[in-house]
C-alpha cells in the first residue's frame, strides 16, 4: 500500500480530506499528499472504513485540487529519526531538519505518540533542582522529572523566566555535564524563537539543545505534532542516552487552539469554550511524558509555557493544564507593572513535588517550614494591604504596619531579583529569615520554636 498513490479524494474542507474507496487503511497511519504543483503535504488518518477514509492534513487543504491530488498511505504512524546527532540541531514542527543541514541518518525511528508509561515503572521525582530564583526555589521548588508550567499572559516576561531557568538550573553539588535541553515552540513569533536561540548561544549550551520550531506563520495543524516530536526526542535522550533533559515548550495555548480548530472541523462535541471534551486527555498525553523511570539514569523535566487568555486562570487551557501538571508558576501583571522581576505571584503558584524534594536531606532542615511560613505571612499581609486600601494606612495597628512593610520587602527583595542573579538555596533561605525577622516571632507559628531561636533575628 505504501507504494500506491490514490487519486480518489472525494471532498476537502479546512484541513480534512475524505478519500473514497481505499480499503484496509490503518488507523493513525501517516499520509503523504502530492498536490497539482507537485508539492508534498503530510497528514494522518483519523477515521477509516473501506468506503471512506478521513485524513487530517497538517499543512491544511488550501488550494488543493481534488482531481489532481495524489495520496499515498505510508502505513505507519508519524516517526522521528533519532540518534545522538540530534543535539545542536533545529527541526521544523513535524521533525524535519530546518537548519539547512542534512537529515538524521539512523535506523532508529520512533512513533511520536509514544506509549504510556506503566505507573509501576515510574520512579518518584525527589531531587531538588536549584534554579537560582528565590520565588521558585524557596516556595515552589522544582524537582528532576517534574512537569511545572509557567502560567503567563501577553506582555509578561515568561520567556525571560524560562531562559533564566534553563541557564541556571542545577542539582546541588553536581556538575551539569549530562544535562541537555529540548526546546519546542509552536505558534511562537520569530522574535521569541530568536530570543531563545540567542539565550542558548550566550550561555554556551547551543550544542546541547534540540529545537523544534513551528512558528506563528507556519501551518496550524502541524502544531499537533510538534510537542509530540519534541518529547519523543526527549525520551530518547533521557532514557536511551541517560541525559537529564529539560524540556521547554511554548506556547501551549497555541497548541490547544490548533486542537480546537481541528475538533471543530471534525464535528466533535465541544465541552467548554468550544474546546473538545478530550482536551484534558490530549494534554495529559503530552505532559505525562515527563518523569523518571526506575533503574534508568536520565529524566525529563518539563516546563511548558502558556499564556492565559485574558489572564484568566479558570480558562480551560490553564485549568486543564493545572489539573495535569505537578503545580504551576503563575506570573502576574500587578507585580510586573511594579517593576518586579520575575513577577511570580506566589499564592496561586504551587509545586506539588516540593514536599518530597526539600528539607533535611535535600536542601536545609528549615526549608519546608520557612516556605509554609512565607506563604502564611504573605497571605496575611496581603489581607492587611487590602484593608489599608479601605480604611487608610494611618488607622492600622502597629502589627499591621509591620505586616505591610514585610509584604513590600518580600515582593521587592525576595521575589524580585536580577535576571543574572543566581541565588543559592542557602542565600534564598537566609533572605527569607531576614524578612521574616521583620515580623514578631510569636506570629510565626509555621516554623518551630527551635528554628525561631536559631534563625529569627528580631527580639521577642
Amino acid at each position, binding site marked *: 500500500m505504501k507504494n500506491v498513490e490514490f487519486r480518489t479524494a472525494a471532498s476537502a474542507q479546512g484541513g480534512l480530506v475524505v478519500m473514497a474507496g481505499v*480499503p*484496509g*487503511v*490503518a*488507523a*493513525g*497511519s501517516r499520509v503523504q499528499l502530492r498536490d497539482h504543483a507537485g508539492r508534498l503535504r503530510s497528514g494522518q488518518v*483519523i*477515521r*477509516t*472504513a*473501506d468506503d471512506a477514509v478521513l485524513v487530517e492534513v497538517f499543512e491544511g487543504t488550501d488550494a488543493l485540487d481534488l482531481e489532481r491530488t495524489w495520496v499515498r498511505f505510508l502505513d505507519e*504512524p508519524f516517526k522521528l529519526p533519532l540518534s545522538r546527532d540530534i543535539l545542536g540541531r533545529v527541526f521544523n514542527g513535524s521533525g524535519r531538519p530546518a537548519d539547512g543541514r542534512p537529515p538524521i541518518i539512523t535506523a532508529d525511528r520512533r512513533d511520536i*505518540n509514544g*506509549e*504510556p*508509561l*506503566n*505507573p*509501576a*515503572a*515510574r520512579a*518518584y*521525582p525527589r531531587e531538588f533542582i536549584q534554579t537560582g530564583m528565590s520565588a521558585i526555589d524557596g516556595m515552589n521548588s522544582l524537582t528532576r522529572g517534574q512537569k511545572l508550567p509557567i502560567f503567563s499572559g501577553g506582555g509578561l516576561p515568561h520567556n525571560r523566566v524560562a531562559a533564566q531557568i534553563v541557564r541556571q538550573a542545577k542539582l546541588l553539588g553536581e556538575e551539569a555535564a549530562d544535562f541537555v535541553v529540548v526546546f519546542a515552540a509552536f505558534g511562537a513569533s520569530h522574535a521569541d524563537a530568536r530570543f531563545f536561540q540567542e539565550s542558548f548561544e550566550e550561555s554556551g549550551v547551543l550544542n546541547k539543545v534540540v529545537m523544534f520550531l513551528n512558528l506563528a506563520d507556519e501551518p496550524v495543524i502541524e502544531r499537533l505534532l510538534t510537542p509530540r516530536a519534541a518529547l519523543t526526542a526527549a525520551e530518547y535522550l533521557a*532514557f536511551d542516552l541517560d541525559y537529564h533533559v529539560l524540556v521547554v515548550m511554548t506556547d501551549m495555548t497555541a497548541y490547544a487552539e490548533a486542537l480546537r480548530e481541528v475538533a471543530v472541523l471534525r464535528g466533535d*462535541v*465541544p*465541552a*467548554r469554550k468550544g474546546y473538545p*471534551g*478530550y482536551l*484534558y*486527555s490530549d494534554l*495529559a498525553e503530552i505532559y*505525562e*511524558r515527563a*518523569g523518571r523511570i526506575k533503574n*534508568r539514569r536520565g529524566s525529563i523535566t518539563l516546563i511548558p509555557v502558556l499564556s492565559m487568555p485574558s489572564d484568566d486562570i*479558570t*480558562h*480551560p487551557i490553564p*485549568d*486543564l493544564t*493545572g*489539573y*495535569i501538571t505537578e503545580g*504551576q508558576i503563575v506570573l502576574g501583571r500587578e507585580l510586573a507593572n511594579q517593576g518586579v522581576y520575575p513577577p511570580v505571584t506566589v*499564592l*496561586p503558584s*504551587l509545586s*506539588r513535588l516540593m514536599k518530597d524534594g526539600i528539607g533535611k536531606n535535600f536542601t536545609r532542615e528549615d526549608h*519546608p517550614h520557612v516556605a*509554609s511560613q512565607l*506563604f502564611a505571612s504573605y*497571605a496575611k499581609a496581603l489581607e492587611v494591604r487590602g*484593608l489599608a486600601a*479601605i*480604611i487608610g494606612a494611618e*488607622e492600622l495597628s502597629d502589627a499591621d504596619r509591620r505586616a505591610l512593610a514585610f509584604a513590600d520587602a518580600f515582593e521587592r527583595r525576595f521575589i524580585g531579583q536580577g535576571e543574572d542573579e543566581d541565588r543559592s538555596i542557602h542565600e534564598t533561605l537566609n533572605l527569607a529569615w531576614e524578612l521574616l525577622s521583620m515580623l514578631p516571632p510569636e506570629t510565626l*507559628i509555621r516554623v518551630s520554636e527551635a528554628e525561631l531561636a536559631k534563625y529569627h533575628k528580631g527580639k521577642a
Partner: protein
Amino acid sequence: MGKILEINGPLVKLELPRTVLGEQVRVGRMGLVGEVIGRDGDTALAQLYEDTAGLRPGEMADGLGWPLSVELGPGLLGGIFDGVQRPLQAMRERSGDRIARGVAVPSLPRDTRWHFVPDPQRRAGAVLAGGDVLGTVQETESIRHRILTPPLLHGELLELAPEGDHTVEDVIGRVRLADGRIEKLYLFHRWPVRTPRPFRQRDHAVAPLITGQRILDTFYPLLKGGKAAIPGPFGAGKTMLQQQIARWCNAEIVIYVGCGERGNELTDVLESLPELKDPYTGRPLMERTLLVANTSNMPVVAREASIYVGITLAEYFRDQGYDVVMVADSTSRWAEALREVSGRLGQMPVEEGYPAYLGSRLAAFYERAGRVETLAGDHGSVTLIGAVSPPGGDFSEPVTSHTKEIIQTFWALSKELADARHYPAVDWLESFSGYVKSAAKWWTEHVDPNWESARADALDLLAASEELQRIVNLVGVEALSGEQRWTLEAAGLIKEGLLQQAATDEVDSYASPEKQFALLAALLEIHRQGLTLVKLGAPARKLIQMPLLAQARRWKSQHGSEDLSALKAKIAAIPQAFEPLLLEYASTATPRTMGGA
C-alpha cells in the same frame, strides 16, 4: 467470527452477528480487547480499552461471550492493576516500562500457592449457597482472605479440599447444581463489574470512619458505608486528602482508584505505603491496600471501566465481612470518559457536552456503597469517597452538582484556603455532613459526651467570625466590640490550632479521636475563659497578647496521638494562664470583693 468495518478513535464498528451489549470482544491482529456498546442488525459498535492506531478495516473481530469481569481471589492485596484489572507489575516484567498493546496477563498470579484452610462447617453433602465461606487463605499478615462461593451458585457440596497449598487454578471442590450439572470450585471466581454484587439486605451505617483528620472526623464526619465527595479546583488538595484517608482510616481494606490522574501520584502511594505502619494493626499499610490505576495518559475507555473494577473489588472484600474504603480520584475524569464516548456515538449532549444519563450513572455508582448483611450473614461495608474536579473550580458544573445530590458528606475544598496554604483546605462553611447525629452516638460512647455540643460551638464561632471579618474588611477592626474582637481571635485560634493539619507534619498527620477532642475542648476553653474576662471589662487587646495563644497553636504538632498526658497537663493549666487577668478584672467589676484585693 466477524470483522472490523470502521475505526474512529477508540470506537470500532464491527460486523459481528449475535453479540450482546456489554460483551467483550477481541479485535485485529494485535488482539485488542473492548466491549460492545451498541448493536444494529449484524453490526456492532465496540469501545476498545487500548489505543486503536494501526488497526485496519477488514481485520478479524470476535465476541468472547462474557462481559467485562474481574478475578476475585487471593493475590489482590498490595497489587496495582490497570482500568481493566491487568496487573501492572506483572505487565512490566512481561513487556517493559511502557504499556504494550494486546498483552494478556491474568489478573491473579497463576503460580503462587496459597495455604487454604477449609471452613469446618462445609461438609460434603450439605447445601452450599452463594456467598458462603468455603475457607480461608492468610493472604497478608493482617488480612485473612475468605474464599467465597460465587454469589449465584447454589447446590450440594460434593467435596472440598482439605487444608493444603493450592494455586488459584487448582480445583478445590465440586458442587452439584439443581439441574444435576457439576460445577467446580476454585480459590477465585469472576464477577461482571457493571453488576452490583448481591447481599442479603442493607444495614444501617453505625460507626464513623475515623480518618485522623480533624476537619473531617470532628466537623464533617463520614460513616462506614457512607458516601462522600471531595470537590475542589486543581491544587486544592483532593489527592492529598484521599491519600491521607487511605493511610490513616480505620477501614480494614482500602481500594485506591487513580482514574485519569497523574502517574506520579500512584508511584507515591506505591513507594510510601509499604513504609508506613497501620496505626491499628502495626502492619505495613500496603498489606491492606490495592490500587487500580488508569492514569490520564492511558486509554480513555479503560478509564471509564476503572471505577467499576474498583467498586467490584470493594464489594468483594465487603462480602468477606470487611469494612472497605474506596477512594476514587477523580470521578470527573470518569464522567469525561463517558462524555467522550457518548460524543463519538453522536448522542445528544445536554449540559456541557455530557449525556443525559450522567446523573443516573453517577447515582447508580454511588449506590454501590453501603453497609450490608452479606450473603453469608456477616456485616461488611463499602465507604465511597470520590474526588470531583470541577472545571474552573465552579461547583455549579454538572458533575459536582449531580454528585452533591447523591452523597451525604461533602468536603468542599477552597482555592482561597489552599492559596494561603491552609491545609486541608476544607471549607468549613461550604462543607456538610448528614451523619452528625449517628457519629455523635459513637463519640459520646467512645470519646466524650460533649462532642456534639463542642463541635457546634466551634462551628458557631467560625460562622460568627466570618460575619465579623466582613465588617472588618469594610470599616476596620476598631469598629468591633471587645467581645467581637475576642471572637475573631478565638476563631483564628481554631483555624490554626485545630483545623489546619499538615499531612507532612509527622506528629500531627494522624490525630486520634481522643487527641481531636482534647484539642477542640482546649481551644473552646480558652475562648470561654477569655469571654468571661471580656465581659468583666478586660480589653481584648490584652487577651490577644497572651503568650498562651501562640503556644496553643503549636500543641497539635508537639503532642502525638500515642501519649496525650503532656497535652492534657497543658490543657489543665489553661485557667492558670488567665488567673492574673481574672484577679485584676474580677476585683474591679465585682463589688463584693472590692475591698479584698
